[in-house]
């Protein structure tokens, strides 16, 4: 069974978002998404410093079976990327909500967070 941590917000396109104490957000892909993709072999990360808008493609994940676009759940500036994923993409399979995070964003419009799904809402669309 996939896990849906209660403290995160989710996009219908399977990204998760965690609001940090400093007002930045960390994003990654859900446990359900990594299960669907299977073994992940390449991740193309967004560029640090890039300014992005919500629903824009920011990353590509390739598993043995499929390629999948990752969309920005909210607008803002990319302030950090998880470079460890370049050499160890399988971290996303083993720890989608922990060491498998993709990037950190400084939101330009924090109210966009309210438009995202909560854990229950996201779990429902994964059924």
């Amino acid at each position, binding site marked *: 069974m996939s896990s849906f941590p209660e403290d995160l917000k989710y996009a219908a396109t399977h990204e998760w978002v965690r609001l940090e104490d400093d007002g930045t957000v960390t994003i990654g892909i859900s446990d359900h998404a990594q299960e669907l993709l*299977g*073994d992940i*072999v*390449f991740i*193309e990360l967004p560029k640090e410093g890039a300014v992005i808008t919500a629903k824009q493609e920011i990353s*590509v994940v*390739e*598993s*043995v*079976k499929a*390629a999948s676009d990752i969309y920005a759940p909210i607008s803002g500036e990319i302030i950090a990327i998880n470079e460890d994923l370049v050499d160890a993409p*399988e971290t996303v*399979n083993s720890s989608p909500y922990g060491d498998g995070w993709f990037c950190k964003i400084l939101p330009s419009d924090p109210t966009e967070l309210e438009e995202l799904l909560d854990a229950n809402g996201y779990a429902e669309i994964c059924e």
Partner: protein
Amino acid sequence: MGYQTPLYQKHIDAGARIVDFGGWDMPIQYQSLLEEHHAVRQHAGVFDVSHMTIVDIDGSDAKAWLQYLLANDVDKLNEVGRALYSGMLNESGGVVDDLIVYRQEVGYRLVVNCGTREKDLHWMARQSKGYQVSITERPDLAILAVHGPESIDKVCTLLDPDLSARVQALGNFRALESGTWFIARTGYTGERGLELLVPNEDAPALWDQLLTQGVKPIGLGARDTLRLEAGMNLYGHDMDETVSPLAANMAQTIAWEPASRNFIGRATVEQHRIDQTNGLLPYLTGLVMEERGVLREGLRIVCDVNGQEREGVITSGTFSPTLKHSIALARIPTGSTNCRVDLRGKLIPVRLVKPNFVRFGKKVFE
């Protein structure tokens, strides 16, 4: 719910994710496709391929009929137990199916694909008019494919000493019969191994015994990456009824001699051979891309032929778990150079190699 093999519950017990495969509920993977792939390359794995269709051919015309039905020549099966890979062609030289044919103590045994079962059985029935042959499907048999460097030794620990010695002595592409069991040194992975055709009721206990010996269950996902590393075709992807065997790297499976043997599709593929020499028929090549990214089925290949830009297509592509980069099979114009793949609108150079990437755990191309 689809058809289920006698091992369905074993797959559930092993934590498999089940998918529909040609109408069958089959395990696509258990825990990790990559780990399953490496288990077969390095140790031993077992696949349930009971969904495949077994057809026994007997009767006084069995040999003559198979010489007409198949592009390869069963006359090469000059001893009981020998096996042959062949295409079964239509009149227009397309591939109805690809299959293995074994010579048995009595008659022949064919193993054909699952997705083509009905079509194949109809085709065989239609083509058998005027021949004294019996065509008998064997849904009472399960198939366990056990492959990997340790596979034969592990299977042999389960057999009595006499049978074990016979299996150890079995050459590649040879099979033996022992009571209701049929044991063949054939497979779809590029590793040593056996295909065990056993009565359905024997399959679950055999599965359990293999797992107890440390043989890992392997899903259809890893079966695909293993066969592609071995450069083996997948019906419906690398070839079908519209594709000449010569455009699918199957030239070696056509027995042209004796010229007097008339097999279905012969006249057309003879013309294909001339066309290919003249550059009019494409061919199936291996592709290697060492940079990041994965070649996928359906992606467009752009290449140069005599200074003109032409196109081909990837028929099967994957990340190669053994080589750690992407490989593919692609059908491209004969004489192509400077091949590039269209990856999200960017043309990335790819290298052409013979369609055989990994054998016995090792890279085989330069």
